[in-house]
């Protein structure tokens, strides 16, 4: 292996690579934020919603969770574009957000249901309204409970973003392939991409554990 040549190719491709990494981080980051918010809505509907609301959300959830992310991405791009004009970025963002919300929703639902009934009763007993009970009593406990799985979801999402290459979102994976088309060093460049993904996911994991430790309740 000729490393000098590789590094010179890498140097030539540096801006493209950085842009690719940037796109991966941006689209994953936005999807995590939006997906989490939507996921909170999903969980609330499942736990506190009326029958109709529960049925609709549950159907949506089953559909999303029973579909490969890859298919979800294609569906968002090709199916939705029959209705509205979407850029690959927008379609990809929708797909990842939906994917994220299904995981967060299911996970948070479990966490909420696992809270002892006595917590709600105690909150009611001192006169808190339901929104207050949720905000000050239930959510802080459920979110703590849901955090480990949420960290996993975030890392999964970054990995799932590689599939966006198929609809032409120029994130790290597609960038790498484009670079390889010009500078045919697949081994080195794919390895590099793998390393970057690993570092991103590893950082998320570490950061998550640090947060977990910080908010852990003393006992």
């Amino acid at each position, binding site marked *: 292996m000729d490393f000098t040549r590789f590094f010179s190719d890498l140097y030539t491709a540096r801006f493209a690579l950085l842009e690719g990494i940037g796109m991966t981080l941006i689209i994953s980051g936005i999807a995590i934020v939006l997906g989490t918010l939507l996921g909170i809505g999903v969980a609330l509907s499942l736990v506190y919603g009326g029958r109709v609301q529960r049925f609709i959300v549950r159907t949506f959830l089953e559909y999303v969770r029973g579909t490969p992310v890859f298919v979800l991405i294609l569906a968002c791009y090709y199916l939705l574009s029959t209705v509205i004009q979407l850029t690959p970025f927008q379609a990809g963002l929708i797909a990842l957000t939906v994917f994220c919300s299904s995981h967060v929703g299911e996970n948070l639902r479990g966490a909420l249901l696992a809270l002892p009934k*006595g917590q709600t*009763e105690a909150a*009611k*007993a001192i006169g808190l*309204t339901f929104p*207050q009970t949720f905000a*000050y009593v239930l959510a802080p406990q459920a979110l*703590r409970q849901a955090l480990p799985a949420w960290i996993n979801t975030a890392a999964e999402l970054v990995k799932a973003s590689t599939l966006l290459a198929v609809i032409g979102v120029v994130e790290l994976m597609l960038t790498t392939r484009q670079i390889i088309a010009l500078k045919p060093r697949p081994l080195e460049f794919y390895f590099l991409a793998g390393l970057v993904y690993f570092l991103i996911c590893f950082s998320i994991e570490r950061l998550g554990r640090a947060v977990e430790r910080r908010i852990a309740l*003393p*006992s």
Partner: protein
Amino acid sequence: MSQPVLEIPVLEILGLHKKFKEIEVLKGVDLSMATGDVVSIIGSSGSGKTTMLRCVNLLEDFQQGSIRIDGEEIGYTAAPERRRRKESEIARQRSMTGMVFQQFNLFPHMTALGNVTLGLLKVKKLPKAEATAIAEKWLERVGMAERRNHFPGQLSGGQQQRVAIARAIAMNPKVMLFDEVTSALDPELVNEVLNVIKSLAADGMTMLLVTHEMKFAYEVSRRVVFMNQGRIEEQGAPEQVFRNPQSTRLAEFLKNAKF
């Protein structure tokens, strides 16, 4: 001790009926308490005593009858038609009573102080300094001032229950409700909680207690109510109820109860 006739009862339960699906657990309960009254409800499990207490706190709905606190009809409108009140209204009425639970139900993610101030800040909307002062006063009163910054997980059962008492009473309720508050405690921790309740009773707090601690009920109550199968079977001064039961069921119950 006879109460003046004109005084409005602080708690008045009239013809309370409660059904869980088809099963009728309260079959017309009447109970009236004056300010400073301490009433213990005894009876076997399934007699409806806890359910009645939970109705007073509106944690259970009820199908017939009325509950008044300080003359105010709670939970439902009486006229022109019986309708459940709005949730915000119910929340406000709940804060007129203070409830202490068998399982403490402290909020595990908040310190002892945080548990007590939550209602003061969010329900009473007091400024933080004032809420903290009130909370500290009550934590002091239940002997938990030193541990105000401890989380529930760092406290013993008895300590948690004392914090729970402070949390309820800090809201300045008209009536305190105690639902078998020592049943989940290790035997050696029971007394520290009972002593707190006794001292609150001595201070004139109006209290309605469901308890299995007969000796405690005897010592602390002004009146003891025996419930059986969803009805009040017998009530009276503790000496009378415990030493001279009229109904055979009460006599039977007392024979098997531990003192």
